[in-house]
């Protein structure tokens, strides 16, 4: 009889160790990325890494501003294209779609999440880049923010749609009924009561989508051109900035890690550290918002 309980207790502690492997992995990831990145951070200085606008490893110039600008711009582009679509999808699935239609849309969105990023990259390279090249602006190579944002918009759609739909479904039925009973249209109920009530969840969904966008690598290096420049408009029209090539933080790592040694390699790990910290901040703020909501 006793042994059973001793077994039970030791199993509990053993399982607890297993539960700690995740935090161990997080710790190891942080530790090793930081350890490899530290020489660059101490030698170059975090300030110069973050504010330098020239990245020329051959000349020991390691400024990450072009990559930060690239990541931010491509994410903004993806958000402009993807967020309305994703939230539209979420509203559709949660409020409007008849059963047969949601039985089509929901698996489709799930499948969009499952498609490998290399396939999106390939599609972008073969279809979207030539399409973007058709925009008649001098210096437009097709590779650049536009094609990359379009690819990324599709890649973040499932994340934002799923979490937003969940948030909308969490809105108490009573709110919906209360609003409809006052003689509002369904659309008024959606915009005036349901979406405001689900707002924090939707904001969290968008933030998580942004986190996902910032972390995407392979599809980006296949379509964005990887030029180490701070993107700027190709002509007087400011929108042509999206035809500019760019490089993301993730792309910076992936493109160069295999060719880098010494301080250059360390600078790439430092890029990783910055990306890691950035995404941790983004994800934990999303979680904080969601937690706020459930309270």
């Amino acid at each position, binding site marked *: 009889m006793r042994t059973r309980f001793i077994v039970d207790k030791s199993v509990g502690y053993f399982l607890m160790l297993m539960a700690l492997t995740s935090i161990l992995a997080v710790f190891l990831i942080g530790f090793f990325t930081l350890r490899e990145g530290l020489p660059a951070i101490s030698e170059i200085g975090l300030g110069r890494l973050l504010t330098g606008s020239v990245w020329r490893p051959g000349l020991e110039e390691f400024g990450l501003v072009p990559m930060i600008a690239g990541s931010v711009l491509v994410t903004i582009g993806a958000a402009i294209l993807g967020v309305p679509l994703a939230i539209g999808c979420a509203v559709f699935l949660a409020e409007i779609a008849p059963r047969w239609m949601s039985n089509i849309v929901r698996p489709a969105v799930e499948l969009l999440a499952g498609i490998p990023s290399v396939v999106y990259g390939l599609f972008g390279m073969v279809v979207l880049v030539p399409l973007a090249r058709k925009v008649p602006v001098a210096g437009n190579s097709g590779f650049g923010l536009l094609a990359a944002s379009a690819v990324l918009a599709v890649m973040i759609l499932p994340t934002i749609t799923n979490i937003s739909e969940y948030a909308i479904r969490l809105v108490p039925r009573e709110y919906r009924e209360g609003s409809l009973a006052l003689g509002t249209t369904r659309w008024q109920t959606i915009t005036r009561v349901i979406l405001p009530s689900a707002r924090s969840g939707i904001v969290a969904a968008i933030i998580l989508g942004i986190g996902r966008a910032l972390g995407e690598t392979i599809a980006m290096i296949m379509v964005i051109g990887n*030029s180490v420049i701070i993107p700027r408009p190709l002509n007087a029209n400011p929108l042509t900035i999206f035809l500019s090539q760019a490089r993301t933080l993730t792309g910076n790592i992936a493109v160069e890690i295999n*060719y880098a040694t010494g301080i250059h390699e360390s600078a790439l790990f430092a890029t990783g550290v910055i990306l890691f910290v950035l995404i941790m901040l983004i994800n934990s703020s999303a979680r904080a918002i969601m937690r706020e909501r459930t309270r």
Partner: protein
Amino acid sequence: MHKITAASILKAAVFTAALALVPLKSAGADTEITLFGSTTVQPLAEKLGEAFEALHSDIMVTVGGGGSSVGVKAAGEGTADIGMASREVKESEFQEFPGIVVHTIARDGIAIVAHPGVSVSNLTVEQVRQIFSGEISNWSGVGGPNQVIVVIAREEGSGTRAAFEELVMDEALITSGAILLPSNGAVRTSVSTTPNSIAFLSFGYLDPSVRGLSIEGIEPSVSNAKTGIYPVVRPLNMITPGPAGGAAARFLEFIMSPDGQAIVSSEGYISVI
């Protein structure tokens, strides 16, 4: 559904986990040669490996990419039997890994290539420098139509880029507006599909999908490189952690043999014998 019990799942999981820990290294180091490094040398090494395997069915040659720097490092750290580099080994690398031995197995020209639709067919070294540094940004600057030049290059750390910079660019810098791609193949693919583009490319990758431009009137061809009149040529190196031994030594011997060098030539590189 009840046939699958929790216990059996756990058992299977533990079994696979154990499996992961057992056969760390295959039968013996002598049956497999691993190479990592330069993507310029990689396809050549793959061809050489296939030929070598045909002669020695008990040996397997595994070739991975990574880039020249990885090649030197992999050899220096002993994570590969042979590292590959498409440039000279740097002084700093010899300092880090004093034991490494360098074998030059071939030489390679670097061609200046353009999209097939580009009408310009000859450039001077000075013009190439100006185009890649961004001083000339329109084909009209070198006698072509009024079209913006799309410069495509390899990323920093690439052996091809290092050799190109050393041989052509002098002190000038490649423009930061260049599209940067992580391999020769990617460069070739992009040049062939991007109108008005220009890039530099290893001879081994030349094919009709891109247009090879003459430099100072001299066509990028193996024969011109061999006679020394084509100006942009660099060594292709294989690096061993120390003096080569075992299967790796036999592979290197094969590469340096007439049969091996015949493959070097047929792949578009310059043989060293």
